[in-house]
């Protein structure tokens, strides 16, 4: 600061005024002068000094009045007033104080004392002003804070309402909501979960919620959850959850992390939805599909009944003849024991032959068929052949087999794939009914097509598929046979597709049609 302050000196006596000015200026103050109260007042209004130094006794407005006036106006109220008196009387002092003056100085005064008092009062005044300013600022800040607080409270309130509404909406859909901290531990209340599982609020905290999971699903779920927490995403898993009545329900749980601005996880939020009905419905569909496939298999077998009876009666006839021959040999004078022995050996193998047909048959019409295993399609075809060879003979169909040697396995259900082959075989034979006997050839080939698929092709030499039939043969309940149910090919295609493969048909370039079953190969290339 270039000056110590601005002082307004008021005195009707010019000499005193000039002396004051000298003293003050020398001390580094900026001095303004006024010869009377009115001009002092207006000077204070236009250019407020830091301090007013005023004589009391003046004509017109005296020092008291000036002081009173200054204190009465808001813009000059803060200016400290020191009154100068020629008379050092207590009354005057009291009066002066009453008017609001801060100090007195009596004439004649010591310059030091005067300057000291002026300095003090200016400092005081400034300090006071500072305090007032700061108080105002504080008050303002306080006000702003209060507003902010109000806003924040409101925001929290609407946020809380929004969360409550969201939870209610989610829970109306039957889902349970839950939250955890960034480490995956439950810290907040999860009322919907607790309501469903019957767990106490305290029980569900931390990792306690896992106690409501089915013990068989616990490990898997924990692993999935821990991994998701580590990877900060991708939590979706199914588990069985125990309801408060003790029953287990199937649930699908999904969760996602809530990220802060810096990318760290603030918390996790998730839902669980009861999928028990959906799973039951899915299981029902699977069961019904399996039932249908089973019915179709039984149906096919009844079509084959005549040829199957033939297939079994052949070894039976041989067994009878062998046994009766053996008895005859034994009746002779010297029994030919070699003949008897070889008769018995043949009986054993013929019995096994009949047994094999019955075993294939039994396995084929069985209902339970849930195992998947590696299969060699050439073997599957041979197994079907056991059931069908008599049928081929009766229908005068020559079966031409072309099996690749280095054939990889496929993974699947043996019975179902046999069903597909059997269906295609029967269709192929039927396609050639009425064709001249010598031309009835059914060609069955198995090979790998180089694109990772094992392919079975069954080609007949019938009349081929007319266009209108070709579109519909895989449609359910479509059949050109008078006694047909029309489910054989649709089921066969469903089986192929559930094995990750395809079943298609096309007409051969010369005559007849070819059905093509393609299944993914498993294992390393040979």
């Amino acid at each position: 600061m270039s000056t110590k302050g601005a002082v307004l000196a008021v005195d009707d006596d010019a000499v005193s005024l000039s002396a004051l000015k000298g003293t003050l200026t020398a001390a580094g103050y900026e001095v303004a002068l006024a010869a009377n109260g009115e001009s002092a007042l207006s000077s204070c209004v236009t250019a407020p000094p830091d301090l007013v130094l005023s004589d009391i006794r003046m004509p017109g407005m005296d020092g008291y009045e000036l002081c009173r006036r200054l204190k009465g106006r808001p813009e000059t109220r803060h200016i400290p007033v020191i009154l100068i008196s020629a008379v050092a009387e207590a009354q005057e002092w009291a009066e002066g104080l009453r008017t609001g003056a801060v100090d007195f100085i009596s004439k004649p005064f010591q310059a030091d004392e005067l300057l000291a008092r002026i300095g003090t009062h200016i400092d005081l005044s400034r300090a006071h002003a500072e305090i007032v300013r700061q108080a105002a600022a504080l008050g303002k800040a306080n006000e702003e804070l209060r507003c902010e607080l109000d806003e924040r409270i409101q925001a929290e309130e609407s946020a809380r309402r929004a969360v409550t509404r969201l939870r209610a909406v989610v829970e109306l859909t039957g889902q349970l909501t839950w939250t955890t901290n960034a480490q995956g531990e439950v810290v907040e209340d999860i009322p919907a979960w607790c309501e469903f599982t019957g767990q106490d609020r305290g029980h569900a905290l931390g990792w306690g919620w896992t106690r409501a999971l089915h013990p068989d699903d616990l490990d898997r779920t924990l692993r999935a959850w821990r991994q998701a927490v580590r990877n900060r995403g991708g939590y979706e898993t199914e588990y069985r959850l125990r309801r408060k009545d003790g029953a287990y329900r199937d649930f699908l749980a999904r969760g996602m992390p809530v990220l802060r601005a810096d990318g760290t996880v603030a918390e996790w939020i998730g839902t669980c939805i009861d999928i028990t009905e959906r799973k039951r419905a899915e299981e029902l569909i699977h069961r019904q599909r399996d039932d249908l496939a089973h019915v179709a298999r039984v149906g096919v077998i009844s079509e084959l009944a005549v040829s199957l009876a033939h297939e079994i009666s052949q070894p039976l006839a041989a067994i009878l003849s062998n046994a009766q021959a053996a008895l005859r040999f034994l009746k002779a004078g010297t029994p030919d024991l070699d003949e008897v022995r070889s008769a018995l050996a043949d009986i054993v193998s013929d019995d096994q032959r009949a047994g094999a047909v019955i075993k294939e048959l039994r396995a084929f019409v069985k209902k339970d068929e849930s195992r998947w295993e590696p299969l060699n399609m050439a073997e599957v075809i041979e197994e079907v052949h056991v059931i069908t060879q008599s049928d081929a003979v009766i229908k005068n169909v020559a079966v031409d087999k072309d099996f690749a040697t280095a054939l990889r396995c496929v993974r699947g259900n043996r019975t179902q794939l046999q069903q597909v082959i059997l269906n295609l075989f029967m269709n192929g034979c039927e396609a050639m009914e009425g064709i001249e006997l010598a031309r009835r050839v059914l060609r069955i080939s198995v090979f790998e097509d180089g694109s990772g698929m094992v392919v079975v092709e069954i080609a007949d030499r019938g009349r081929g598929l007319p266009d209108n039939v070709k579109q519909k043969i895989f449609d359910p309940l479509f059949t050109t046979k008078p006694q047909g149910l029309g489910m054989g090919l649709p089921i066969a295609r469903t089986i192929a597709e559930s094995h990750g493969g395809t079943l298609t048909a096309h007409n051969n370039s010369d005559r007849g049609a070819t059905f093509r079953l393609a299944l993914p190969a498993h294992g390393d290339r040979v």
Partner: protein
Amino acid sequence: MSACETVYVVDDDPSVRRSLARLLRSAGHRAETFASAREFLDGPAPGGPSCLILDICMPGMNGIELQETLRPIDTRAMPIVFVTGHGDVPKSVRAMKNGAVDFLTKPFDDHELLRAVDAALRRDRELRRLRAAQSETRARMGTLTPREAEVLRLVVAGLPNKIIASQLGIVEKTVKVHRGRVMHKMQAGSLAELVRMAGGEVAHGLGGQQ
């Protein structure tokens, strides 16, 4: 039973073939087996009395077709016993009409089969004997002179010597001489025998000019 009597078995099923052959052997027969009609036809014609046990249902030529193929061939035609895994009535009727000895359904009793085989072999023996006799007769008739053949014809027709003499424009004594030579050449012991032997041939217009 002569040593070269053979029972042939044609059946596509190997178990059935082996067991049938064994059964036949246990009854003292000689058996030969074939897996198809074609194989049988490609094999040699039978030497002695024989019969065929034939399956109906076979790939390629079936049993009935083989029966019909064999019938006109004298050197190969033989009595057939059909065996089948089905009880197919139309096929059995057709088989029997075509001259089969029997039609059996599997599984059959050993007695059933062996009885049928015996009947078939008997029939074949009989047929062969007849055929042999026939060719013997024809050979003998071939040695007759034309005049002798005429005399034979008229004798077998039942005419007395006197009428024969007048018909042929020769004397009765000459007729007697011719008759004696005919009886000798034909190796007939009596008129009845002569008629039996040569009657059929003459009736069919053989061994003589009309």
